[in-house]
């Protein structure tokens, strides 16, 4: 639905990092290619998201709030 504010496991705030992360991925996609695994990994490292509990919060998230917006 919308990115959880904190990591479920460790409590680090990940919501603001998700916004920055998806912006950078969009930048790469606007060049007409998919980001490589190395690029994704280094983007997360740049954002100081080092632990795998926080990384899965961002990587496995699907933002569906735009889909439910017309029905509220």
């Amino acid at each position, binding site marked *: *639905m*919308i990115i959880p*504010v904190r990591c479920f496991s460790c409590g*680090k*705030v990940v*919501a603001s990092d998700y*916004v920055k992360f998806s912006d950078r991925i969009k930048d790469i996609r606007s060049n007409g290619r998919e980001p490589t695994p190395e690029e994704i990994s280094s983007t997360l490292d740049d954002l100081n998201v080092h*632990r795998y509990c926080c990384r899965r919060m961002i990587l496995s998230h699907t933002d569906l*709030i735009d889909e439910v*917006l017309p029905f509220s």
Partner: protein
Amino acid sequence: MTEQRRKVERGEGEYNLMSLKILKAEDRFIKFSIDGITPTIANALRRTLLDDIPKLAIDKVIFHHGQIRDREGNVYDSSLPLFDEIVAHRLSLVPLVSDPKMNFREECACEGKGCPLCTMSYSINKIGPAVVTSGDLQPMGNPDLTPADPDIPIVKLGPKQAILVTGEAIMGRGKTHTKWQATSGVFYKYHREFVVTKSELENWTSVKEKCPLSVISEDSKTIRFTDDDGCKAVRQLLDYPSVKVIEDDTQFIFQFETDGSYKAIDVLEYALKRLPQRLNTLLESLTTPD
């Protein structure tokens, strides 16, 4: 690989002097080593850092329901794409810059009614279409106690939707709820030394080149490395059986990060003061049988 552990060597009632060295300090991250403590105390400190630091978090949210009008008289609807409960929960998890001098509500002079000494109010007033972020939380009262991170999305507003809420933040501790948890990723490890006999392993020169700061001591026959600073090349020494690994269970390398409500160094300072208080609580609750 022979693994040896140096035990705390001391007689009854005799303690080593504790010393603390800060290895790396940033606003929201700190790494330090503590010498002269036992694993029990190290773990007690870890738990204090995690769940016993008082900080502000929103505890009560009041939603305005019905029509919301802007200055030009346009009418907006207060219904949101997320349930009010979810929005309230998301607001509570936002880290707020905190003042450690604020009272707990139950211990405050106002006797739990809520006063400026124990309560901080915030409000959001925004009209759609827009993304409501934590930066839209307006502090009412002390202007220093703003959200520590202004970019957290709370909810998205469609056209003709608006949000008008007020929230009350109170002090609490991480053991009650994660929203009052000021730190995350609190880890510690033993100080570890790798003793390499130069004649048995030729690889040591490349490790020394990659991690010059990890060398503790060197003479003509042996060289000692440590992986305290996390230099990755040192770890490959674990693959060689001739390297002697010594773990020291009296010296600990700690690290943690904060969510922005306090500086990392302030949290550490508070935790070190808080730890003896916690132990005293145990001591005071013990009664001798008649």
